[in-house]
């Protein structure tokens, strides 16, 4: 329902056509993901890189195609809708932000250039004792000659097993408030002292524990200013929330379309089940809520593009909260509408459910988003 510009419409149409051709069938997707066990297909991603799509949102001077949050969201939404196994994109796009804003010229060229060529980036913030409460980070970066020595455990690190670098947030100082004394580092894959282990989840291979044991990082790996990770992180929250929202909007729309196609086809008691009022009404509500998500997301993305430096805590939190909760609701109801077929792995609905049910948790849980919105209202 959101009004796209002709360029945006063309971009979306190109992505949709690509996905129909490359990832339109379960067999195609299974071939790209080792039967659904992997979330990211480097070959497919490389094709997108060749089409120049991965430079969306990256400045022209680093080889990107420019564009803003709206275009990034469009890409995330449509690839998610198309079930393209490019799960590495979201974190990569989020990771690009701090490098663009705070990285050295050298870091930017290396990281952003890689992103455009189809390389994946990761971010490592969460710890077993520091999830939504990032300020509780204890992973330690101790100063040493020429750099820092890292010790500690990180968890919930998406892409770590695929990424060129981890954007690590570690504690460089214990003085001051909990939010002070954190620093960002760009840790290249394969750095000695860093070990990556996958975590089995309902969603397959996506996230990792990362262990640092006396891992040395030279001074040049610091991203931005020492002890300044917190404000640097805050500056990236708009984009994280919007990209996650876009991805879930796409997934929610896909779950919706899959469910509608099924209920039109499936007959019970001599009629398509979608003709029963109980299902029709539920579907009408879902259609309405998805349109609301879309309008909200792209309105906030437009606000972000109008004033890129502006923090939009309320608006971005709303977009994330609404899109993820709605996508989960669509998948839950879609599963019910599909009966046993929704539960069987040969249909996609159960994967929509697994994908959406965790979306209300990562990138700040729904509860955290509500806390933030409430705070902006003066509560």
């Amino acid at each position, binding site marked *: 329902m959101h009004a796209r510009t002709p360029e945006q419409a063309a971009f979306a149409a190109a992505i949709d056509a690509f996905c129909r051709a490359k990832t339109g069938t379960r067999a195609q997707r299974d071939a790209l993901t080792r039967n659904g066990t992997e979330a990211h297909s480097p070959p497919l991603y490389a094709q997108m890189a060749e089409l120049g799509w991965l430079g969306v949102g990256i400045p022209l001077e680093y080889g990107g195609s420019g564009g803003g949050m709206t275009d990034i969201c469009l890409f995330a939404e449509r690839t998610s809708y198309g079930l393209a196994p490019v799960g590495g994109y979201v974190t990569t796009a989020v990771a690009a932000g701090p490098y663009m804003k705070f990285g050295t010229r050298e870091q930017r060229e290396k990281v952003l250039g890689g992103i455009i060529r189809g390389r994946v980036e990761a971010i490592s913030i969460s710890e077993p004792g520091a999830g939504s409460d990032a300020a*509780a980070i204890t992973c330690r970066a101790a100063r040493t000659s020429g750099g820092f020595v890292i010790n500690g455990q990180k968890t919930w690190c998406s892409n770590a097993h695929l990424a060129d670098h981890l954007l690590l947030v570690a504690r460089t100082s214990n003085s001051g408030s909990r939010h002070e004394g954190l620093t960002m580092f760009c840790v290249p894959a394969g750095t000695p002292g860093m070990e990556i282990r996958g975590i089995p989840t309902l969603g397959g291979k996506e996230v990792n524990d990362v262990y640092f044991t006396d891992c040395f990082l030279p001074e040049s790996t610091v991203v931005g200013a020492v002890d300044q990770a917190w404000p640097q992180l805050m500056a990236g929250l708009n984009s994280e929330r919007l990209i996650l929202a876009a991805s879930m909007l796409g997934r929610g729309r896909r779950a919706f379309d899959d469910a509608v196609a099924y209920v039109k086809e499936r007959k019970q008691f001599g009629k398509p089940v979608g003709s029963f009022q109980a299902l029709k009404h539920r579907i009408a509500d879902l259609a309405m809520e998805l349109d609301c998500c879309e309008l909200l997301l792209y309105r906030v993305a437009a606000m972000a593009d109008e004033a890129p430096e502006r923090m939009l805590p309320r608006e971005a939190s709303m977009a994330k909260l609404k899109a993820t909760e709605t996508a989960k609701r669509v998948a839950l109801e879609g599963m019910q509408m599909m009966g046993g077929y929704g*539960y069987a792995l040969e249909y996609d609905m159960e994967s929509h459910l697994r994908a959406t049910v965790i979306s209300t948790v990562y990138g700040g849980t729904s509860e955290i988003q509500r806390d933030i919105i409430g705070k902006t209202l003066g509560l």
Partner: protein
Amino acid sequence: MTAARSRWSSDELEQVRNLAASYFTKEVLPNVPKHVAQGYPDKALYRRAGELGLLCMSIPEAYGGGGGTFAHEAVLIEEQVRAGDPSMGFAVHCTIVAHYVLAYASEAQKKRWLPKLASGEWVGAIAMTEPGTGSDLQAISTRAVRDGDFYRVSGSKTFISNGRVCDFLIIAARTGDAKGHAGISLLCAEVSDTTPGFERGRILDKLGGKGQDTTELFFDDLKIPATNVLGGEEGQGFIQLMQQLPQERLSTALIAMASLERAVDLTVEYTKQRHAFGKPLFALQNTRFELAECATLRRVCRSFIDDCIESHLKGGLDVTTAAMAKYWVTDQACIVADRCLQLFGGYGYMKEYPIAHLFADTRVLRILAGANEVMKELVARSL
């Protein structure tokens, strides 16, 4: 907070509960990874349950059963859920299959079949759903054609619980020319991997219920003795299904009930121990209210379910109330599982945390044994 003992319980039932709990935790759970990997449970564990007297507890002793009541089955169902075993197909085996035999088979058939089900020598299954049916039983197209002293059964079934391991199968099929419900009969088949005309299809991979075999089944001129029509005459299948459904639906509701209770227990424990922002998650008002609401649902559902169980023990559970229990408690269990998973945060998604499995396992309860939408229609008819 441990649930209070239900009104319908007794010291003897609590002993059965302890035995069942020990069986599931000590004997079944260590094998669950194997069951999940192979897609079906080990039949030896059925025989072990039979040895312990845990199978067919509500079947008379004369047929090898325990001579107990539905309360015994209820205890078994609850303890399986509490232990967190997704793999053993006891609900179908004991509370459904054995009771069709008990209710409709001839004395000779009961003597032949029930002891094998009670001992766990055989595993039972029931084949109703077809790719084109679902809640609409009239659409059944599997045919049983009379051929002398036999029927020849052809057709295909899907979503059949215990389909991979079953030795005894009740098949819903069309006999004769009657249309609609009147043409449906239930036929009992003794089956094995080598039975001619009988083929086990794929084990369906599902979101949850991993390790429990839900399969396709194919019949191609499967020969069944004509005397194996349940009830002795054709066309009784639909009525028989209707009569057995309240118990099946109550069992489903009870699985949901035990799941809901477990979800709340797990989450209270987790949120008290997990810290965020310098205090236990449980100290946050959102957590407290979410869990207060879930605990209230637990208490309310339990009142209702115990009421239903008591009615059923007295033979008074009507179709409407059973439909209410099936629809409502399974809905609430899914809602509570979802809310509890959310309180676990990312850990709720990790396979090492039981809430992730519970969320996935519970979801199917709103679909099987008659989709909840069908239950609502049944309730509406009573108004």
